[in-house]
């Protein structure tokens, strides 16, 4: 048997072993057959919130995924709609960030002067937790939807900016010199020589950014509420419904993985070998 086949089989065995142990050690709680009124009002032993067994989570997943787009009013929507809201916010914030970061990164990478002038700002702004911007954004922008998008913007801009600058600055000087001997304009050099040469580094930055954006959107939505997968987690947490919380954690993981996979594919397209 080849290694390519062995690895997934090993993964599956590991998964089922962990789930089996989890299921096994989760105690099943039964209520007493006859409860006094006090016990009824206390909810009985079975009502208490506790970590659910994997079978309960699987059942919850089947229930949620069989009707992912239901809409019972503004505060209760299916998981599919929630994920769509989150992805929409992430992509719009991310799009604006790319629009700013890539041209600015080009500028910084091509001009050592611009690099030196902007570096202090980048170094101060970059380490700020995106959520720290939230109260300020809510106050200044006066719109919670736009604030959430702004937070995504501000967190995804830095890896793209820095990677673009780095990629552009490190394009082999020989290639730029060749372009110069062909008397290409600066703009044409940037588009036909530097961009393709720096593309893999830029894409790495974009891939890091989308990962961060997805991490941040969940926290931002827990704060602002309304819609999105972060709100879904918060709403279920309020109800101490751990089954739904774990289910949504899995959904967040899977969507994050899909977003990353898309960028990994694009990265392959622009890669080159010298």
């Amino acid at each position: 048997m080849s290694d390519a086949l062995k690895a997934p089989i090993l993964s599956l065995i590991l998964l089922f072993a962990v789930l089996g142990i989890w299921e096994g050690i989760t105690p099943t709680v039964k209520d007493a057959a006859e409860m006094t009124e006090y016990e009824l009002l206390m909810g009985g032993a079975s009502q208490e919130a506790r970590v659910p067994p994997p079978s309960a989570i699987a059942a919850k997943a089947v229930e949620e995924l069989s009707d992912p787009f239901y809409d019972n009013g503004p505060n209760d929507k299916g998981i599919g709609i929630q994920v769509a809201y989150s992805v929409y916010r992430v992509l719009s914030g991310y799009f604006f960030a790319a629009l700013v970061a890539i041209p600015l990164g080009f500028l910084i990478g091509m001009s050592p002067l611009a690099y030196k002038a902007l570096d202090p700002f980048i170094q101060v702004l970059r380490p700020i937790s995106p959520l720290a911007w939230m109260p300020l954004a809510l106050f200044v922008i006066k719109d919670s939807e736009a604030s959430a998008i702004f937070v995504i913007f501000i967190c995804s801009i830095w890896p793209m900016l820095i990677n673009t600058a780095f990629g552009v600055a490190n394009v082999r000087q020989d290639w730029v010199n060749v372009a110069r001997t062909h008397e290409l304009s600066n703009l044409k050099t940037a588009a036909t020589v530097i961009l393709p040469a720096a593309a893999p580094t830029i894409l790495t930055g974009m891939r890091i950014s989308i990962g961060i954006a997805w991490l941040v959107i969940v926290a931002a939505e827990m704060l602002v509420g309304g819609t999105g997968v972060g709100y879904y987690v918060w709403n279920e947490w309020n109800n101490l419904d751990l089954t739904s919380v774990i289910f949504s954690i899995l959904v967040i993981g899977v969507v994050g993985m899909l977003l990353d996979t898309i960028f990994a594919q694009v990265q392959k397209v622009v890669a080159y070998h010298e």
Partner: protein
Amino acid sequence: MTIKSFGNPYDGDVDLRHGKSCTCDTCSNHKHASTGSDEHREALVEPAQAAPHRDFDEPNHAAMDSDEALSHMVESAVVRSVFGHNEISRRAFAKMVGGGTLAAALGSIFPMEAAKAAIAESLGKPEKTKLNVGFVPITCATPIIMAKPLGFYEKYGLDVDVIKTAGWAVARDKSLNKEYDAAHMLTPMPLAITMGAGSVAEPYLMPAVENINGQAIVLHTDHLDKNDDPSKWKGFKFGVPFEYSMHNFLLRYYVAEFGLDPDVDIQIRVVPPPEMVANLRAGNLDGYLSPDPFNQRAVWEKVGFIHKLTKDIWDGHPCCAFACSAEFAETLPNTYGNLLKALIDATQYASPAENRAEIAEAIAPKNYLNQPVPVISQVLTGRYADGLGNIKDVPDRIDFDPFPWHSMGVWILTQMKRWGYIEGDVDYKGIAEQVYNAADATSIMKSLGLETPNKTYQSYEIMGKTFDPDQPEAYVDSFAIGKGS
């Protein structure tokens, strides 16, 4: 009862405090009748009487109808607040320039007619029918929430989306951003927002209280041995839902009565209500004074027990309210009026015990409170387990009463002063009357055929101590523990 508050506010000879020198007819009649008490409360309202009249020069208060009473009340409040509630300067000024000039001058800077028209006797069609109203998922918001599934908004021609909000800081910001047309707020919040305490200053109105009572002090089950005596709570970490909340002020009041300084001896943290139980379970908090259903939920989860219902601290205290910006009320008077009517109608429907079970079912689903029905119904019916092995029967554990007493506003302001949230001279009555829109509540309650109180100030008995709304500053100074005194 005689009506005192409607002395013509533009007349320099009338004393709106109705003191010794007042020449208004009620006072002069009164002086003939009894030579004693010259101290009268301001703003006693007893409208709904005979023929209307609109003559400023011959104030015949007894013949004032409710419209008249309303417009006089608004005018009087505005005029008095312009003069910083200083009767002497108001009267001196009115005499100097003449009442008509004063009326015209004030009218030019304050849209008197607009303020009076904020709510009309017969409401027209709402200018805007699609509204967003924010709520924090707690039983205090019952009228705001249930008005949706039980059709109260629809009944008054409104299509309202009730939007769940994570906490009050976000609720405040979304209201100030105008994402919400109106919102469920804590009774101190509109006062704080209007004064710009912990927020940008924006004139807010609070035309209706949602619930009275309905909160509790919950302790972690680890502290069963400290249930008997709050003075043992030194070093505890307590949660309250917001700084400007009755919860904060009642908890501070309560522990201070047991000799603990809430700023030194215990730690008070702001925790959004929905996160209370999770924090209590994690040991982040030793207890909290929070809105239901999270007190009952702590019992249900077996992590806490109910130490005391706030009803037993101050029976009938206000908690949450319906609030909106003054701008909303002025620019969309019919929308505002219909919304207020829907909510007051829902509030009075929520009060009788026989409706409570139906309401519990209606507000428990995921779209609203997202809590188990048995937890909600224990809160609303008042038959509940306290977590100590007892079943209690307290039908008015939570009750619903829309009338925004000005004295409630004054009490809240005294506590804000006491604990240093506001400083300097506070115009207690002026602010309470500006924000707690008793006139609108009165006129809507009347149109629904509900009984309305004939005054807007009353005194309260809180843990054996009497609060007199006429002596707010003395009340603040009477406490041994506090920052403001």
